[in-house]
């Protein structure tokens, strides 16, 4: 089934994508599928093992199902403080 999700990128991912948020039509089943799809399309340097995913403003495991209308954020390794 075709879905549309809102995808946000932060830090190095935002720069490599060239924008912060976009609507993405996708057939990805899991967040992991979606990241690999977008990584191939935009040439992200970070492997999924070093990125975390948030869905609707909370952390989720990579295996979480992608639902139509989700707000999905890809988070590079953090470095606050």
């Amino acid at each position: 089934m075709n879905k549309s999700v809102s995808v946000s990128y932060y830090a190095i991912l935002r720069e490599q994508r060239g924008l912060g948020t976009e609507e993405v039509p996708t057939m990805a089943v899991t967040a992991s599928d979606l990241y690999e799809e977008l990584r191939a399309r935009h040439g992200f340097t970070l492997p999924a093992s070093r990125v975390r995913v948030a869905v609707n403003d909370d952390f989720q495991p990579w295996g979480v199902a992608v639902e139509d209308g989700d707000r999905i954020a890809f988070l590079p390794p953090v470095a606050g403080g």
Partner: protein
Amino acid sequence: MEFRVTGQKIDPAQLILAIGDTRVGACVTFEGRVRRQNEGRSVLSLDYEAFKPLAEKEGQRILEEARQKFGVLDAVCVHRTGSLKLGDLAVWIAITAEHRGAAFDACRYVIDEAKARVPIWKKEHYGDGSTEWINCATRGPGVSGPGPAG
């Protein structure tokens, strides 16, 4: 207890007034400031970027953990976003407790966990004109990635 992410200058003198009552015997604060050198490179300025709703949510969880683990009375953390120059305050934490042991341990816990878990990122601008997103390198020492150095 509040974990706040802000684009405004942090003013500890103002913030600390809101903290504490006469149960408090110890208050430990931590200031993280922008310093002019990092791992041998000359730093000119920093940009901080946050995923604000989740940063504040995860930060609040950390403060709550600190309260439960160490029995502190109050815990506040404020973290900057935006462009910071040398000497600027990037993060400020204050912990109050009856006794100093709990206040020290909780303050250390909050900054360590915040650095490891809160979705905030730091880009350093160096004297040689280059920039780097900290922890995001995919090659070079300490990174297990596809680079030739392994």
